[in-house]
């Protein structure tokens, strides 16, 4: 009888093999390593969206560039554009993750935008959520 086989990243099974390190870089040992691919992907997403295009030397197109939206007028079509922009960028840069939903919550009184990204990694059963708060 067939069953839904779940794939596991081989490095996740090796407890002493670190994958990346966590953001922000403010731990006791400066770099706090992470040992699960799920955590590495989340930190890569944070790194991508907190980078503005043009900040990385030698790679000027890299970056989510969400900060540029902070000083734009908040309107419904802007938020729709922001959603489309995030979706396109994730599909381009993170081809191996599957986007479930993107919610952009604007709090006009606090001058802040909250971006919630829900995603999963196909065939692994890994579901995760990222929340970025720009204020």
């Amino acid at each position, binding site marked *: 009888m067939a069953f839904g086989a779940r794939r596991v990243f081989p*490095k996740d099974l090796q407890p*002493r*093999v*670190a*994958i*990346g*390190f966590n*953001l922000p*870089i403010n731990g006791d040992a400066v770099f706090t*390593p992470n040992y699960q691919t799920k955590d*590495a992907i989340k*930190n*890569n*997403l944070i*790194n*991508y969206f907190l*980078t503005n295009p043009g900040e*990385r*030397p*030698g*790679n000027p197109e*890299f970056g989510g560039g969400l900060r540029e939206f902070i000083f734009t007028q908040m309107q419904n079509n802007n938020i729709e554009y922001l959603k489309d922009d995030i979706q396109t960028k994730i599909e381009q*840069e*993170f081809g191996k993750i599957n986007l479930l939903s993107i919610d952009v919550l604007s709090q006009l009184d606090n001058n802040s935008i909250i971006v919630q990204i829900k995603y999963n990694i196909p065939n692994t059963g890994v579901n995760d959520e990222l929340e970025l708060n720009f204020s």
Partner: protein
Amino acid sequence: MAINRNISYLNKDFSDFRSELINFSQTYFPNTYTDFSNASPGIMFMEQASYVGDVLSFYLDTQVQETFLQYAKQSNNLYELAYMFGINLKLQV
């Protein structure tokens, strides 16, 4: 006691430094860092180091170039090199 590591001294530009740093990490620190995707924070640090290496290589090449009479571009260096070979040039104002 110093540890012998295989370091390439032939890389000169940004992409060479970047790939060599990735190779170095994979060879000597296989369990410390394994995420070499474009978006990972570790690659950001490697690219910054590559950028510094690229700029330093450029200045090094420029300085070496200025020591050869055939290739020097700055006028004061050309005058100094000519003086070294016994030619006393007068500046015309």
